[in-house]
């Protein structure tokens, strides 16, 4: 399992099977705004030079976590270690972390050059060095020659680049990015995703990235932390998170999925949709004797469309949408569940089909009270308009 870094129980020792160095460790962070507790026992570590993404919908506490790291918020309880030293007692301006803000937060009274040079001027660096390093930073973000522009004379994408250049000029150990691409259009966002990933590799800086966009997280990250209501749901690589979601919420939040109730009464065998299927998972160790209710996830692209047959799950195609690479079909199953299938071959609406899948495409999860809404599988869309998280 990939969730060995999670914070399910009490603050625990952070063990890392890979043995790589941790630049930051958070242990048991709690935070409340008034009566509302926004962070519950947040515990995870950040490896040196990794691209870590905090992923979750608005209000899940991901931005608050980032702000605690940056020093703009205090934690009610818990520990943050930065290379073995306590970070929480260090004021924001002395931390070796720099932030790229959601709305850029450029200094409107300074031009691009002075914005980028801001951090160096505070450090009393010599004029020549400032010039070389600012030029270098501007080149890194692809804005050479923009130094004399005013920040209100450049586009949103360019402002974002200035914000990044400004943040990396101090050569921070960790760069914190708070939904940096949220205000850009789709095409620009895709471009910047690639560039950011490239930049992270070249600079060798640890990136902590906050986003509500699951696709962005899957594309760029080395590690993803999925959060919901101030609780970490799962920590893992993009592949882990996608292929082995720990619960129905994660499965639903990351990509399209068919999530249906099932039961296991013995190892490597799961019952759902009224039929018994072979699978690759044993029973959960804590499961009681007899039938153990579970959630079953089958990704839409893992379902094969076959002929109708009594030993398959059968249903009627009710909708067919072309999505570019594949067709997306909704199938009203005889089991009463609406299945989503992605296939390169279309099936006419109204036609009856049978569905099969491989045993290792059946993902078994512990039963959770989360019930996904079939029509709202991507909660990220409606969040994009919100300016900031709690």
């Amino acid at each position, binding site marked *: 399992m990939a969730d060995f870094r999670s914070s399910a129980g009490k603050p625990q020792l952070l063990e890392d099977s890979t043995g790589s160095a941790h630049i930051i460790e958070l242990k048991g962070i709690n935070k409340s705004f008034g009566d509302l507790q926004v962070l519950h026992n947040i515990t995870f570590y950040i490896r040196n030079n990794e691209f870590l993404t905090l992923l979750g919908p608005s209000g899940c506490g991901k931005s608050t976590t980032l702000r605690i790291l940056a020093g703009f918020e205090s934690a009610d309880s818990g520990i943050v270690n930065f290379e073995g030293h306590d970070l929480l007692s260090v004021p924001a301006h002395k931390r070796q972390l720099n932030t790229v803000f959601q709305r850029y937060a*450029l200094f409107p009274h300074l031009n691009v050059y002075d914005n980028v040079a801001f951090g160096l001027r505070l*450090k009393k660096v010599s004029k020549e060095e400032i010039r070389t390093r600012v030029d270098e930073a501007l080149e890194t973000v692809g804005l050479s020659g923009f130094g004399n522009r005013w920040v209100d004379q450049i586009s949103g994408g360019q402002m974002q680049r200035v914000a990044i250049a400004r943040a990396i000029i101090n050569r921070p150990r960790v760069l914190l990015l708070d939904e940096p691409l949220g205000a850009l259009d789709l095409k620009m966002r895709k471009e910047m995703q690639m560039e950011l990933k490239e930049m992270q590799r070249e600079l060798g800086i640890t990136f902590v990235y906050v986003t509500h966009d699951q696709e962005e997280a899957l594309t760029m990250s080395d590690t993803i932390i999925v959060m919901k209501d101030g609780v970490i749901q799962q920590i893992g690589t993009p592949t882990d998170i996608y292929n082995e979601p720990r619960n129905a919420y994660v499965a639903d939040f990351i990509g399209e999925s068919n999530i249906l109730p099932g039961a296991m009464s013995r190892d490597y065998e799961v019952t759902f949709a009224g039929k018994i299927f072979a699978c690759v998972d044993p029973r959960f160790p804590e499961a009681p004797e007899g039938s153990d209710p579970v959630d079953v996830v089958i990704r839409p692209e893992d379902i094969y469309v076959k002929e109708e047959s009594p030993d398959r799950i059968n249903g009627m195609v009710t909708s067919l949408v072309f999505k570019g690479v594949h067709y997306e079909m909704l199938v009203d199953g005889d089991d009463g569940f609406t299945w989503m299938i992605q296939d390169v071959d279309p099936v006419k609406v109204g036609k009856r089909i049978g569905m099969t899948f491989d045993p290792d495409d059946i993902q078994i999860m512990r039963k959770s009270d989360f019930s996904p809404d079939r029509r709202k599988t991507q909660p990220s869309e409606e969040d994009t308009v919100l300016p900031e998280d709690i």
Partner: protein
Amino acid sequence: MHRMHLKTSAGITEVLEIPVHIRLTAIAALMSLVVFFLPSLTLTLFSIPRMNLSFFQILQSGQMRLSIHDVKYTLTFSGALPFLLLSLLLPVLILLLIFFYRKITEKVPGRAVSAAVLSLLFVNLVSLVLVPTKLISGAVLAKASVGSSDLFFAPQAVGNLCILLLITGLCAAAFGTMGLKMHLRMVSYPYFLWLVVFTVLPLLLIFFAAFFTKNSSGSYVFTLGGFQTLMVPRVIEARFYGLTLHLQEYFSVFLRSLDYAVWTTFGCLLVAYPLAYALANRARRTHTSSSLLLMFFVLPMWINTMLRTYAWRAFFGQSGVLNNILISFHWIAAPILFLKLDFLSDFIIKLVLVNDFLPFMLLPIYSVLVKLDENVTQAAHDLGANSRQAFSRVVFPLSMPGVISGIQMVFMPALTFYMIPEIISEGSVTTIGTTVQTFILSESVVQQQAGNVLSLLLLIFVLITMGILRNSDKDTGGGGMIL
């Protein structure tokens, strides 16, 4: 023009689709029709008391009774009949024209319709005005000792409003006739008139009064008399901060005013900035845009300045509150003449000036600070700035527009303010304001001219200062600037 899609009634849609100027004309025509039926003949016959008949009633009864200065007259309408009928029929005709505007303009160009409406409305106005003169003969007027010109001017608000409406309708129709379209931005045109009447004209008049004088033959000639009065090489003794200086008379007056203005501005800035900063921080922390606390600081602004100034004088006066307190505690034996002591009185004047102008400095700075993006300050901290550096490198530069507007709102008026120094010093201090007052109120023409010249010089000084301030704010984009 925006088309309103009202599918419920074709007639209403048509009326709504006609141009603005035609609609205005319709309002004028409707008004003149309503006036005809309302018992408001007085609208055009105001100087004659106790007459409250409508044109319609005259048309019905054929005559009317009228009492002027308690003498009763019976008037017949024979002479006024055609005009009475015209003022009844013309509005109806105009309204019909407008109601069928869409249909008519299919055949006839809109300008022609506007021209027709214009001429009809004009005749309507004339006939409305002529009715009273035709009703009331010259003999009656002479007997009642009322002039015929009295019949045309309405001294009451309603009458004036009706006449204004009619004239607006005429103007609107004239617009249409010229082929121009009326836009909403024309609402701003009366303000240009305001600008001309209350800003440009007075300035020209001041300039004229300053440099032109009537000679013996009654024509106006150019003169520098006023200017020379100001430049007279008379040296007087002036005391500044305990120093006795020998200065040209009016230069010393100017210096005195400048001294007050600079200190007032500086004092206001010194008090207002930290206050605004604290209030803005508090407002941001509590997520409220308006602060009750701020209101308390602005509250004195709503109390009459003169009243406040006299209160200050009462406080510092010989038998004032302060002296009474000091004596009752036996700290002093005899009252101190705070307002007569050279240095103290000067200080008290500046204190009162700062107190008086504080809101004008506080409000612009507060409004800029409260809108400051919190992320920007956090970004400064993030990049390694401590609180002091974040303030000096980010917050203060970003609040400059507010500071500059505050300076403009305080420095300019403080320079010419004369009431506070006058009242506090009990007339012993001469400022530019008092000098201008003395000049203007003097009997001598040359002195009056000197007053005007001084006003103009002050204006030039103020304009130069404002120009300097504006330029210094170029970098920050000038957000939040008032001037």
